[in-house]
């Protein structure tokens, strides 16, 4: 396999069959760990009464982090639009978000840059990065994504694509069918990567209780779009699969349906206690074992990172405690925009 390793690759980076380069593995691991420690911190904040409600993505890091590393980050149609799940903290951190901002949102502080204390944890928004505000009824975003994708369709010259992510249960909503229908019209195909993270539950309803078909990705086949089902618990599977899907959509300007099997380590949300769920694969533990086996990181190094991030986030949450909650009069702000912030090819960037 050594002949397939590009000459430009640094000598320290060695990839085996189906393996990612060592440096990338360490980078992904570090972001997965940071994401997990962030989610742990947010859950602790919930349990200590510092936030009203927690929802997030422990168990999806092996997928959410590679996604954030692979998107073309920026503003306007020449970059990728992201209609994300609320389980995508890993994506945001991989894109370069400050985890303290998630702590601010968890505490519904006025300093929360995503919603200024208005929305739940994991409800990101960042216009400079094309991160469209996350809506709690996630599946509706499959309908909204059709519009950003249309603005990027073949013939427009736009370089970016649209990525929309929802859960398995939400695909029962008509919006998922809308995305299948609208994105595959002959001659009007949309550069849309549809991602379904399948954790096999809709809150408490098991997969088999709502889906009569084996895999959600199979629905894409009727529409003639390429589909793939992958193990989302392994970043060395999800990273190349995502790269393949993104490259396809970017080059072909056509849709792709990617179904990602993931774990739900803390249940749906704090409404079910946010306690550890037994019997689910923990992608972080699994990847730690991989790194250990390949001697890419020592256990001591991994433990040190874990301790450091835990400490940093605990300190950050203490600092955020002194940041103000939004003023009551602020409810009347931003009902309407006074100017068009999003206009034009650059999405309003000046």
């Amino acid at each position, binding site marked *: 396999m050594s002949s397939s390793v590009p000459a430009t690759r640094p000598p320290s980076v060695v990839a085996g069959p189906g393996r990612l380069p060592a440096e990338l593995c360490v980078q992904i691991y570090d972001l997965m760990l940071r994401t997990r420690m962030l989610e742990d911190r947010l859950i602790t904040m919930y349990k200590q009464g510092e936030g009203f409600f927690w929802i997030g993505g422990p168990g999806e890091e092996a997928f959410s982090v590679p996604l954030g590393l692979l998107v073309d980050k920026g503003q*306007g*149609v020449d970059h990728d*639009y992201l209609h994300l799940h609320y389980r995508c903290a890993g994506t945001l951190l991989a894109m370069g978000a400050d985890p303290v901002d998630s702590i601010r949102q968890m505490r519904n502080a006025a300093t929360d840059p*995503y*919603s*200024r204390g*208005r*929305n739940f944890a994991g*409800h990101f*928004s*960042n*216009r400079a990065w094309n991160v*469209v*505000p996350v*809506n709690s*009824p996630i599946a*509706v975003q*499959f*309908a*909204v*994504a*059709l*519009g*950003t*994708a*249309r*603005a*990027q369709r073949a013939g427009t010259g736009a370089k970016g694509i*649209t990525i929309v992510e929802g859960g398995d249960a939400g695909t029962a909503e*008509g*919006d998922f069918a*809308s995305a299948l*229908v*609208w994105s595959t*019209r002959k001659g009007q195909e949309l550069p849309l990567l549809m991602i379904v993270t399948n954790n096999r539950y809709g809150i408490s309803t098991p997969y088999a209780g709502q889906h009569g078909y084996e895999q959600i990705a199979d629905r894409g086949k009727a529409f003639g779009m390429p589909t793939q089902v992958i193990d989302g618990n392994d970043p060395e599977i999800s990273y190349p699969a995502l790269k393949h899907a993104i490259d396809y959509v970017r080059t072909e300007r056509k849709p792709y349906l990617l179904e990602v099997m993931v774990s739900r380590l803390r249940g749906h949300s704090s409404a079910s206690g946010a306690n550890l769920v037994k019997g689910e694969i923990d992608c972080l533990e699994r990847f730690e074992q991989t790194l250990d086996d390949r001697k890419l990181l020592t256990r001591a190094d991994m433990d040190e990172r874990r301790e450091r991030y835990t400490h940093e986030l605990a300190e950050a949450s203490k600092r955020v405690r002194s940041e103000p909650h939004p003023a009551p009069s602020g409810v009347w*702000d*931003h*009902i*309407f*925009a*006074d*100017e*068009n*912030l*999003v*206009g*034009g*090819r*650059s*999405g*309003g960037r000046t």
Partner: protein
Amino acid sequence: MATMIQAIRMALHVGESRLGVTDIFGEDVGPPLGGVFTGTQGLETAWNTPLDERGIVGTAIGLALAGQKPVAEIQFCDYAFNTIDLLKIAGNICWSCAGDWNVPLVLMTPVGAGIRGSLYHSHSFDATATRLPGWKIVMPSTPLDAYGLMLSAIADPNPVMYLMPKALLRVKAEAGETIPGEPDDDKLLSSMIDAPLGDRSAWKPRWPELEEMYIPIGKARIARPGSHVTVLTYGRNVLMSLAAAAELAADGIDTEIVDLRSLHPYDWDAITASVRKTNRVLCVNEDTEITNFGEHLIRRITEELFYELHAPPRLLAGGHLPGIGLADSLEMASVPQKDGVKAMIAELARHEP
């Protein structure tokens, strides 16, 4: 003089040729039909969607977020009810992210009764629309206002719902309500911008040299000045109320008709001035009467202008019915008609405190 639907079409032409409109779309909006009411014939950016209102509203939101300027149509507002949560999302995006994003889209949809449209072509949407915070809601009653409100809707950086009173779409403008740039001759205008019957694949419109004219969102129009009774209304009921007022003038009743034009934001200053002048107020609209927009106006008038009133404020609205029946007798019994408006104005005018 243009009809309202011609005025809307001309405004959309100005929108796509000068104001940055990128997409005009909906079911049967593109060629060959150009809209079931002809509103989008001959437009460069008009295209047909799948029969999927949720896809239409979602696409409009997404296009807006991606820096485009969409004008989407729901073919009849009767088909908009399955899009309510997407309409809520269009209205809450800017607020949810504290102004990080805005959603500059126009959603137009024909509303109301008056064409014998039975259950699914007669609905009103004003009560529902005004319960969607984050939207601006407009509804013209004349071709000139239809033109000017559409240009304002297109220019606005927020979601604007443009309710089209379907009974008025083919009504011609009154003298003196010329759209700047339209030819004086109706037949000439029609030959320029109305698609021919039959094969129209080779047809291209010849647009007149239109000037931009904006009716500001949030400003009412005094459709008829009067001193005895105020009628607060919009859309189809403006013409109905004007006809009623003309007949009542013979009986010495002088009615003021306030055409709200914008339901949100609405022109409270104009309402206040009129109520202070006449001291008697009637709200007229076609939507079902329970939790009706007119009820809101009456509530606010009662709270803020109570001591100005010489008679209890009244609402004349559609019955709280599951639908509008097809038979002429049923439709007439379901939504306000001229004689009912006339009787209620007269009753208010004669009411002694």
